[in-house]
């Protein structure tokens, strides 16, 4: 299969080769630009969350569970996005809608909300990015 595609490329006109090269470079560029690690998009629950857990009257186990929900349940239907992309007001709209769509249990929804609130505290995400 790869040999066939290479054959098509080598037999193409110069104009078509430039088109193929442009598309390939664009895709590679987008891929590199999009490559944030999971740790950057959804920070692991570590010692930095301890004080936040106390302040928010929650547990590290619940935050860890919330992170699991964010990475596993949310990614069934769409790509995982950096939590910092949205303001807390926006998250308060998104969570109930997505929880209903993905049929999250009450416990999972609560864990997800607790985790996102904790990450927002850690990252200093404002209530409204506007």
């Amino acid at each position, binding site marked *: 299969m790869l040999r066939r595609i290479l054959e098509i490329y080598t037999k193409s006109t110069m104009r078509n080769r430039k088109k193929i090269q442009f598309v390939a470079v664009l895709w590679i560029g987008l*891929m590199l630009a999009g490559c944030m690690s999971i740790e950057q998009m959804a920070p692991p629950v570590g010692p930095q969350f301890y004080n936040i857990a106390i302040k928010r009257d929650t547990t590290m186990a619940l935050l860890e569970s919330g992170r699991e929900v964010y990475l596993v*349940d949310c990614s069934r239907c769409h790509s995982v996005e950096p939590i910092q992309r949205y303001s807390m007001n926006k998250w308060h709209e998104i969570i109930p809608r997505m929880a209903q769509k993905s049929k999250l249990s009450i416990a999972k929804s609560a864990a997800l909300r607790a985790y996102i609130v904790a990450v927002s505290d850690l990252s200093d995400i404002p209530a409204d990015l506007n």
Partner: protein
Amino acid sequence: MEDLEIDTVIIKKVLPYVILGCVQVMFASHAHGGERRFTYVYEATTSPKGHWELEHWATWKTAKETNRDYDRFDFRYEIEYGVTDNFQLGIYLSDWRYEENRPKGKNRGDWRDFAIEGILSLRNPTTDPLGIALYGEVKIGDELFELEGKVIVQKNMGPFVAAYNVTLEAEWEGPDYSEDNGKFEQALGVSYQFSPRFLAGIELVHEIAMPDWRGMRGKAVVYLGPNFSYRAPSWWATLTPLFQVSDVEDEPDFQMRLMVGFELKG
């Protein structure tokens, strides 16, 4: 000139799809769907437990070197259900086909089969190094029995998703199911999520038909093309036009698949 003729035919044939899609959307009340990024490539994730979804598929194949008037439409209607968070069951209620330019005396449209599929997700494509799922399908029709198995591999990298399927199909058809054929297929899809509503990517399909299971002596046909996926609150749609990039004359030069999905309130 030939390419222009094909483009004109494609536009004329695509318009009914667009109209059909719009009609389906109009009647999609009380629904919001579970989305698919690809139409020819399966993903390693499954529907959440308790989730019901209705999917409409339409596939158009056209323009063989050996028959420029070739036009075939295949339609499938599937209901999917998330049995557990890692296992999904699908029932294809009815698969039917419409083919223009059939020999005189033969119906242009006919019912083909119904089918049952199961997808078992073993590894998550986001949290594990590689997402893995197993797929099995049984298809039963008029003098037709088919078994299909796939291994699905997927990796999610931020807004990018890459999925790869390897498929083996065994088919028995004809009187007494005496015609015994196989098919090997591999498919690759890459998709980029530009926004929560819009995704685009490419899909590549490589098929080798094995008549009478005569090894890999069947002709290998390769298709390549872009794919586009749109997600609305109440429905989703994914479209993939594929162009043949190999030189197999008795296989279609062009095919296109449209999938539209709606969540059913269960």
